[in-house]
């Protein structure tokens, strides 16, 4: 895919140049000059040992935090200079968390619909879109079930539907199969691939799971806040 990017000359969806992020007034260096690019609709996995900076990178990509230095452009926006980061999170990126993080008191439709508040969509449109997404992830008929009434795999699929609610350019997933059994893990991976093709999203998946890494076009290895290997890069 990286070759394809170079060949096509298409603008990268994600462009990180010498990104640095520290905590505790510089005492802890989480990312130390990270540079990489991700092409449109590419499926990239980020991996590395605990504490290598994966979660920090994910938070920066989702505009949940800003880099100390360097440039990070996601979906055409410099995340350090966003005027309304919440709008960016709502409309440009979709987030899937390891623990699905569904709201337990809302049913599946509500959990998907809640991501669409603040958009121009009306109530009926939001409900229709939520239903359409639940159908897409294979949960038709389960819209009125609450998270405790769903299996782990079904919950993660609701989380995927929620992440896609506002048609984001980039889907960022943090250990999306971390809490799933083998069957559910396979289903979620197949679904991710299908969504990439059908919804046209770029996938960035943080994981330790070998099967998740195998499914990616490219794997970026982080260690001590640096990119130590970028499989697939020239």
């Amino acid at each position, binding site marked *: 895919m990286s070759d394809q990017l170079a060949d096509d000359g298409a603008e990268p969806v994600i462009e990180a140049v010498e990104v640095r992020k520290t905590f505790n007034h510089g005492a802890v260096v989480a990312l130390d000059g990270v540079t990489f690019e991700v092409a449109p609709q590419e499926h990239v996995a980020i991996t590395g040992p605990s504490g290598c900076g994966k979660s920090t990178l994910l938070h920066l990509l989702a505009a949940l935090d800003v880099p100390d230095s360097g440039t990070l452009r996601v979906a055409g926006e410099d995340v350090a200079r966003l005027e309304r980061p*919440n709008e*960016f*999170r*709502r409309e440009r990126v979709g987030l899937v968390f390891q623990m699905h*993080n569904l709201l337990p008191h809302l049913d599946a439709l509500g959990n998907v619909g*809640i991501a669409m508040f603040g958009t121009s969509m009306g109530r009926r449109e939001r*409900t229709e879109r939520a239903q359409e997404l639940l159908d897409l992830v294979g949960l038709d008929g389960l819209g009125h079930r609450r998270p405790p009434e769903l299996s782990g795999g079904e919950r993660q699929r609701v989380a995927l539907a929620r992440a896609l609610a506002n048609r984001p350019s980039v889907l960022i997933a943090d250990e999306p199969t971390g809490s799933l059994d083998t069957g559910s893990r396979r289903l979620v991976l197949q679904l991710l691939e299908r969504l990439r093709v059908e919804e046209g999203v770029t996938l960035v998946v943080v994981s330790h799971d070998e099967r998740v890494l195998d499914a990616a076009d490219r794997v970026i290895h982080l260690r001590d806040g640096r990119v130590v290997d970028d499989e697939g890069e020239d």
Partner: protein
Amino acid sequence: MSFAWLVLHNVWAKKVRSMLTALAVAVGVLTVVSLGVVTDSIRTTASGVLELAEAEFVVAQEGIGVLDSALTETQLDMVRELPGVDNAVGVLLNTSELGDDYPLLIQIGVRPEDVRPMGVRISAGQEFDADAEDEVMVGIRLAQDLELTPGDSLEIDGEQRTVVGVFNTGSEFGDGAVMFPLVSFQAEQMVPAGLSLFFVQTSGGVAVSEVQQTVEESSPLLTAIRDLVEFGQSDPGFELITAIDQAAMIIAIGIGALVVMNTMLLSLVERYREFGVIRALGWSRRRLVGLVLGEAMVIASVGAGVGVGLGFLTVWILSNLPDLLGVLEPIYEPWIFGRALITAIAVTVLGVMYPALRAARLSPQEAMRRE
């Protein structure tokens, strides 16, 4: 799913928290409503004295409660001579009781020749003699309640009196009273030539406020009262009651707000992850504060409704206590509901603002890390 639905759903989903918060609001509203109704009712009941006679205003002793006012017939003569005064009638007031059904009986000493000029109508029988010692007239409400007619006997303060007439003043307060001949009543009360109030009628074409001013300027011992507001201001006792009422309202709002804040802060800790998730999904701080405030407003409305209901129940219980029967006639003015609503909103907004702002300041990634 609309935003309003989400607000209502969240309130319903956390029933215990919502109920506790509504209860705190209800207690604040209950305090404010019951104190407000009681204060207003007592003030209105007492100010009924202003309606005893057809007069433009009432003259009482300056700086003393109207019911404790002590004037003299010499002062009455002086007022009658003031420019703009057409007529002034002096009455001596006292309170007593008439068994359990009438714990507050208003006694009015008045000259018989002043009864009709006061605008009092005789419904049955006639006026008492000026120097009669055991004759009385009863108000029409009292006569109906006790089934009294002219010629009947009535024991007041251990003395048998003969009812010679039934009068009608047109006011609730006056129609529950008993009238005595002034001279014998002054002797009984051991205040010869003593009076409590003067009912003043002004000459036509003269501004009432000017005559009031003339009366007050004629003696520093006199105050002229025209309405409920002036009545409240003239009586230090009522000023104190009003001050206590207002202080209680502030305390009730303060305590209520602290309880609401405590409950909402606990709820905030419980909902860290939820708020973090919706912030991560792109909700703005304003929308999140709107959600928390919206939930609080729903709870406030429930609390206000429950508080008003409990307040009315409290007032009803109080007004039926034997010692307060007839003294506390509950009056529910529209402003009481306004005050209940203001209290509920004040308690809720004060209590919820800090937790809501803290929720809005939460960093999404930090919030999601918390269990």
